[in-house]
């Protein structure tokens, strides 16, 4: 059974600059994916609810102004609500010395400025199929 990748493109925390998330949403759409797009400032609980209701494979969080610092909280909330299979990617500004913390917390990929649309689409697609495999495993258990 195949159906388009479902991706939630969102922003958490306080920053409102959404140029990047809009452009990425357009690229993913043009690659044939179904993108659920939200305005900035989503609360963590809201992102979890959205991911659940929309049954997304991948969540893309755009962070330009240190909002990535609360991404570990988001990952924890996703796991607590049965969404451990959902893959999470971060795009935007993550300083070099804070990247490892995010990866350790369970972030699957970090896209810095300069990442091309091709790279992003390819990675998200791969992660979406990974998420589906993980979910099937969860369900069979």
């Amino acid at each position, binding site marked *: 059974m195949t159906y388009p990748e479902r991706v939630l493109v969102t922003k958490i925390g306080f920053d409102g600059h*959404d140029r990047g998330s809009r452009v990425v949403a357009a690229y993913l759409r043009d690659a044939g994916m179904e993108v659920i797009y939200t305005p900035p400032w989503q609360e963590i609980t809201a992102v979890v609810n959205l991911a659940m209701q929309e049954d997304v494979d991948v969540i893309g969080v755009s962070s330009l*102004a240190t909002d990535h610092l609360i991404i570990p909280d988001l990952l924890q909330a996703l796991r607590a609500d049965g969404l451990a299979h959902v893959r999470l990617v971060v795009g935007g*500004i993550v*300083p070099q010395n804070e990247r490892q913390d995010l990866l350790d917390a369970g972030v699957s990929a970090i896209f*810095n400025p*300069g990442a*091309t649309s091709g790279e992003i689409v390819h990675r998200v697609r791969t992660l979406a199929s990974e998420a589906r495999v993980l979910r099937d495993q969860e369900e069979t258990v």
Partner: protein
Amino acid sequence: MSDPASLSQDSNLARDIERWQALYDSEIGEDRTVVNRSGIAVRPLYTPDDWSEGRYAEDLGMPGEAPYTRGIYATMHRGRTWTQRQLIGLGTPEDYNQRVRILLQQGASAISLLPCNSGFRGIDCDESPLPLLGTCGTVINTVEHMEAALEGVEIDKISTAMNDPTPFTLFAFLLGVAKRLGIPLDRITGTANQSDYISHYVANHMFYRLSQPGARRVFVDHVKFCREQTPNWNPVSVVGQHMQQAGATPAETMGLTLSTAIQYAEDCIRAGMDADHVLRRFTYFFDISISFFEEVAKFRAGRRIWARIARDRLGAKDPRSWRFKFHGQTSGVDLTQQQPLNNVARVTAQAIAGIFGGLQSMHTDGFDEALACPTEESARIAVATQNILREEAHLCDVIDPLGGSYYVETLTNEMEEKILAVIETIDAAGGMYAAVDQGIVQKMIGRSALDYQNRIESGQEKVVGVNCYQLEEAEAEVATYRPNRAAMEAQVKAFRTFKAERDQGQIRQVIGDLARAANGRENVYERVVAAAHAGATHGEIIACLRRELGFGHPQMVA
């Protein structure tokens, strides 16, 4: 053009151009197509065939004279250099105070204050996730916080700019500090940056706080309040920066900014204010991108168009009201995370464009500003960049040094045409407020943002270290600013105590008054100021106005 002398001159010129063109074609091989960000084709050479001083008086004029193409003051930077106004904000009020004192010692001639993102979101520090507090701005929720932030700063002598969106709580706190120090309010000078609520709905949702009709109401009341009580404060700063950062081209940015200014002017005039009174205190805030000549032309054309709009369309009679005063910030969009020290070169080029564009005040970005709040070192280099350009490169010696350049004058004319077309589109939609409501502006900007990204991806637009000249080796680590977590925790704790120990009855009273003003015809901003001075917090004031005037959401336009 009809006298024989000029005729023969013209035909000589035509012959010369033809000869050069033949030579050029034979030497260049295959020529590149160059189109600037605003979509104007850029040719390899400009001559008197493109521009000659035919309409000098009408289109250029002298500096300090309408239409101000060459600058709004007769002396421009030679008489008074631009104001060095570094936008800063970080950590606790005490952290800010320490940083601002360093900048003042180094020659900054004015200060500005960027509040914490939690404040932009309209909430106090006690409601915010701790890791996000103070990372991108200073936590200022009360008059007490403002007092600590400005301790030792002579606020009656130095101009302050506040990144202070509607309902202008920071300004209310600043006035509270002035009151405590016994400073008369007419001694307070500076600018309400981010008073431009329309740009927040369109482009920078950062400062989005009230519903659009609510923001419109508070905007007009705030202008009225300032006209009456703080006559030396600029209550309006129209922020083209937001449009350009969100992806609008430089020409679109200028067109949208001027359309926004028209909307604000008309709203104030409709509310019974005098055009000259209002317009004299209008200011503008722009991004300076690295598209060098395009930026210079953007500012020159914008100045000229605004002078004509203010005079002919808005009916301002005083030439001082026609002046297009603007603050320029070197654009963070052009900075890269890769090879961050390269950003010093970028900021330098952007700053020169701003200076040649005739700005009145400037912020130069720290090289790490694409990564985080500038560190002390990067903030120092940013200020030094301005000092070097002024003192060593002698950029202040001649007024409008690019004026009369065939290229720059032609480009100024071409940008003017593009800008006027944008204004026409917005007029046709019924003005900026209506155009935003209909999603026209958001679509325009969204399209341009995607176009620009595609230009980068296709290599048409080159970014060093990103899509060319990339480095193989690992990136050098740059220290990024993070506030002291323990100090921030202490600040939140102190804030909670402050709130608990206030006279709760009085707080209820002033918030009640604010709500009544919002629902009635009273000046609502007067009540904001009264509430702030009585000890109401930033978050409490905004929560009240959101309840009464509505908290909409930014429009999503696909």
